[in-house]
């Protein structure tokens, strides 16, 4: 075979033959061998003979751990990937990704391989690696879950794919849009992604009502200008909110009239906005591209009128459009009055009604695309049982109600307690079955103050896999606590932990280094070269700190702590803010949620270990925490102390966030667990680990002070301020 001879020269040829023979002897079937034979020379030509030869070993590993079929698929795919990747290192990187999946979830290799090309085209190499890594971490040991992920069947997989692909859709643009709106209109909007489908097919227009602006998750047909379109859309809604008046009454208006009045109102608020901010016109006008002088259908006439009203250069040909423009211009001095829209709209609507122009309310979509569906302009019947005044309005309205409840963030808890609600958490919930069985990770002593003895191996600590929650957790956190996060970020930059050191013999410094000064003075007088380094200064201390954050997730943290929030929700946010702070500082952080159900089952959920970075998986684990069981503080403290005993850090802190005193189902004496926890704290301090407690709620604090001492215990009575205070407190104590 000449191709083979060209591809593998010299020693490579021998290696190739050896690899071939090995693959041949292993008996994975003729298909694998054929695939290798076909792929190897092409891969060798693209990225190099070493890579091509290594494919044999890859293939046999895949054949053993997964299936020979997957191995064949792999080999078939390799030339394509080699062609796409070009460089040997990048090809190796891609191979390593597949190997990683093979290692932790062999079954997922085949679905991944069959989507590899598409994934690579969409993501590129590095984001592809990130997407795969996240998938493996999200699924953990659960093969079903990882299979579903790599088959792109879970919403997480899709969502993360979109995120890593960096495609401009609503989630990727959301925060920018929010800022844009805030900058222009001085109000912070509540933006929501609309549900994927309304009753009339996909949601294609923005909609606002009450305080919420819902936007389609993507606009199709605007590739490349999505960002402009979304901006135009939020600017348009802002104009409504700024210049709009009270809601219009529907009265006896027909759908056609409703549409015309809405259109004029759109033009009215836009004109006013452009008077204030002339540049908005340049943002909006490019989207007025609809055909306007073709058939005189309502849709075309509307598009023409919309265009003519915003663009003075536009020369309307149709008499109806011209009439509309003239009336609008005649009213230009009174545009601040919303009644204008209604007045002109009624007249124009009547005119059009008499011309027998067809108007199909069901298929009508507002043009151009950046405008909203106008539902926010009208006073709509509150009672869904009331017969709909117009078909056109009822259908999207039903959709609005439905998506509103889906999207409301305050309903998070409800979603947890009602598993039948279909939502993004659904497929993930399957994991929770596995997280019901813990894995014993440690046996700990406990102190009995009655007997005055410590009982070894008295308490069993079981680790439970985190239940995965919301993939959008970090984004929502930013929404809720953006100000806090940025404030803390700044404080963090200046905080210091660690030990200061004196620097002797410096060229500059606060005070004279006496020894050096004397030496220099002697040198001067004896006419020798004096050393100018005569000052002393102090180093800024290096940061060296490790924190183990313990979150109490006992039953009582389900208590309400604010509108639609329970204590755990707030603990969760606080932990996330603290984690963000610490990862910026480069501090070591581990987060463990704990509860207990008797001494044989102290339940710990490792939300984040010291080794894992702070990432999507941390957010998923945090948002998946749910309240339950009791609080055995002593055991949790010992567990945390154990986890950090080997870490070499100047300061080690165990930070406990709890809402109550220790209690457990197998212990009726209230003092027993308090005394035990106190003992645990003392032992930790003797090992150089600080134990600090943040006690939540009004009644809390009493027993915590006994356990931790007054100085190491902070009581926060307004639970809702915890996220803010915890990070602040952290900065203060690490100073």
């Amino acid at each position: 075979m000449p191709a083979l001879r060209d591809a593998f020269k010299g020693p490579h040829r021998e290696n190739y033959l050896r690899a071939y023979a090995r693959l041949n002897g292993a008996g994975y079937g003729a298909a694998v061998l054929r695939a290798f034979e076909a792929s190897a020379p092409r891969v060798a030509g693209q990225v190099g003979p070493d890579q091509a030869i290594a494919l044999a070993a890859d293939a046999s590993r895949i054949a053993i751990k997964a299936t020979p079929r997957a191995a064949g698929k792999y080999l078939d795919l390799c030339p394509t990937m080699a062609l796409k990747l070009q460089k040997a290192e990048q090809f190796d990187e891609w191979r390593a990704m597949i190997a990683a999946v093979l290692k932790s979830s062999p079954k997922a290799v085949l679905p991944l391989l069959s989507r590899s090309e598409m994934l690579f085209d969409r993501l590129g190499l590095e984001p592809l690696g990130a997407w795969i890594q996240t998938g493996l971490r999200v699924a953990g040991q659960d093969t079903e879950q990882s299979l579903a992920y790599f088959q792109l069947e879970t919403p997480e997989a899709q969502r993360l794919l979109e995120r890593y692909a960096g495609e401009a859709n609503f989630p990727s643009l959301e925060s920018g849009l929010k800022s844009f709106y805030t900058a222009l209109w001085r109000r912070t909007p509540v933006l929501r992604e609309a549900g994927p489908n309304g009753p009339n097919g996909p949601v294609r227009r923005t909609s606002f009502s009450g305080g919420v602006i819902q936007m389609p998750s993507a606009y199709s047909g605007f590739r490349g200008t999505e960002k402009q379109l979304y901006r135009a859309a939020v600017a348009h809604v802002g104009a409504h909110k700024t210049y709009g008046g009270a809601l219009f009454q529907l009265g006896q208006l027909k759908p056609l009239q409703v549409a015309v009045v809405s259109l004029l109102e759109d033009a009215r608020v836009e004109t006013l906005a452009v008077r204030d901010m002339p540049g908005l016109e340049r943002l909006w006008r490019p989207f007025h591209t609809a055909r306007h002088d073709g058939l005189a259908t309502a849709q075309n006439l509307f598009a023409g009128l919309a265009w003519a009203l915003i663009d003075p250069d536009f020369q309307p040909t149709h008499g109806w459009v011209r009439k509309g423009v003239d009336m609008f211009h005649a009213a230009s001095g009174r545009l601040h009055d919303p009644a204008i829209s209604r007045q002109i709209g009624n007249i124009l609507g009547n005119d059009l009604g008499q011309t027998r122009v067809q108007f199909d309310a069901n298929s009508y979509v507002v043009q151009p695309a950046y405008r909203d569906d106008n539902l926010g302009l009208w006073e709509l019947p509150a009672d869904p049982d009331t017969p709909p005044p117009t078909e056109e309005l009822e259908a999207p309205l039903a959709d609005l109600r439905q998506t509103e409840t889906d999207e409301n963030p305050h309903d998070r808890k409800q979603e947890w307690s009602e598993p039948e609600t279909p939502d993004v958490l659904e497929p993930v919930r399957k994991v929770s079955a596995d997280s019901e069985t813990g894995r014993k990770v440690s046996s700990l002593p406990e102190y009995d103050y009655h007997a005055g003895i410590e009982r070894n191996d008295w308490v069993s600590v079981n680790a439970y896999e985190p239940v995965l929650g919301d993939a959008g957790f970090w984004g929502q956190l930013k929404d809720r606590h953006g100000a806090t996060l940025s404030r803390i970020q700044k404080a963090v930059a200046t905080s210091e932990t660690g030990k200061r050191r004196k620097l002797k013999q410096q060229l500059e410094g606060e005070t004279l280094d006496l020894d050096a000064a004397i030496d220099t003075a002697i040198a001067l007088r004896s006419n020798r070269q004096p050393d100018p380094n005569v000052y002393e200064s102090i180093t800024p201390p290096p940061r060296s700190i490790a924190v183990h954050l313990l979150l109490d997730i006992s039953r009582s943290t389900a208590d309400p702590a604010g509108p639609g929030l329970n204590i755990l929700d707030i603990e969760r946010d606080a932990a996330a803010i603290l984690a963000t702070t610490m990862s910026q500082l480069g501090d070591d952080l581990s987060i463990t949620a704990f509860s207990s159900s008797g001494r044989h089952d102290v339940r710990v959920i490792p939300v984040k270990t010291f080794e894992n970075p702070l990432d999507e998986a941390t957010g998923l684990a945090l948002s998946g925490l749910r309240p339950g069981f009791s609080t055995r503080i002593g055991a949790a403290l010992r567990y945390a102390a154990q986890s950090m005993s080997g870490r070499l850090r100047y300061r080690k802190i165990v930070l406990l966030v709890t809402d109550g005193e220790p209690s457990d189902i197998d212990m009726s004496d209230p003092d027993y667990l308090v005394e035990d926890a106190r003992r645990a704290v003392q032992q930790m301090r003797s090992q150089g680990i600080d134990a600090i407690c943040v006690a939540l709620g009004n009644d809390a604090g009493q027993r915590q002070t006994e356990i931790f001492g007054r100085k190491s215990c902070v009581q926060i009575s307004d639970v809702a301020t915890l996220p803010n205070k915890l990070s602040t407190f952290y900065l203060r104590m690490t100073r």
Partner: protein
Amino acid sequence: MRLPVMLKGPTGCGKTRFVEHMAWKLGKPLITIACHEDMTASDFVGRYLLGPEGTYWQDGPLTKAVREGGICYLDEIVEARQDTTVIIHALTDDRRILPLEKKGELVKAHPDFQLVISYNPGYQSVLKDLKESTKQRFCALDFDYPIARIEADIVASEAGLNQQDAERLTKIAGKSRNLRGKGLDEGVSTRMLVHAGRLMSAGLPITAACQFALIIPITDDPEMRSTLAAAVDACI
């Protein structure tokens, strides 16, 4: 009375300008010390240096002002470490003295000595806040960005810009200030507007001037930059 004065307000709203103006009006020398976080007490009061004949004492800028009289202006005092700022305490009550601890000297303040500090509450964070004991020694003036009309006048006259362009710049600044605490730590300051205005009167188009003088300096976040650029675009 020579009461110590604290000027509060966001950066670039005219605090330093105000002090300079007052010094000129009162005909007094002005010693400005820009505080930074590595600043130690010695940087204020002075230190021993080593000379050919042994050690000698060198007065710091604060000591100089205390001895000779004049306005001493500590700019952005919160930037200095808290343990450093306590050295001004004895100067700010009825004692009006500056103890030079290392030298063993008690400097009595010149009758014309006056202390002014500036402080940007926006910077205020858990760590960088004035001690209560420092805060309470000062009378305070609140500064903020001027109202749009006056700000436009300032930009026009400082930058030699026409009134219409100055008003456009002021409007843009207003938009950015809407984002204060919501993505931006501070809005665009009057000082930045003057920079942009100067660029414009030198012939740079407004978009480029805003990009160069306002948007790029104020944030590193590419998304926020793009948002600000869009907001600028909407205003012009």
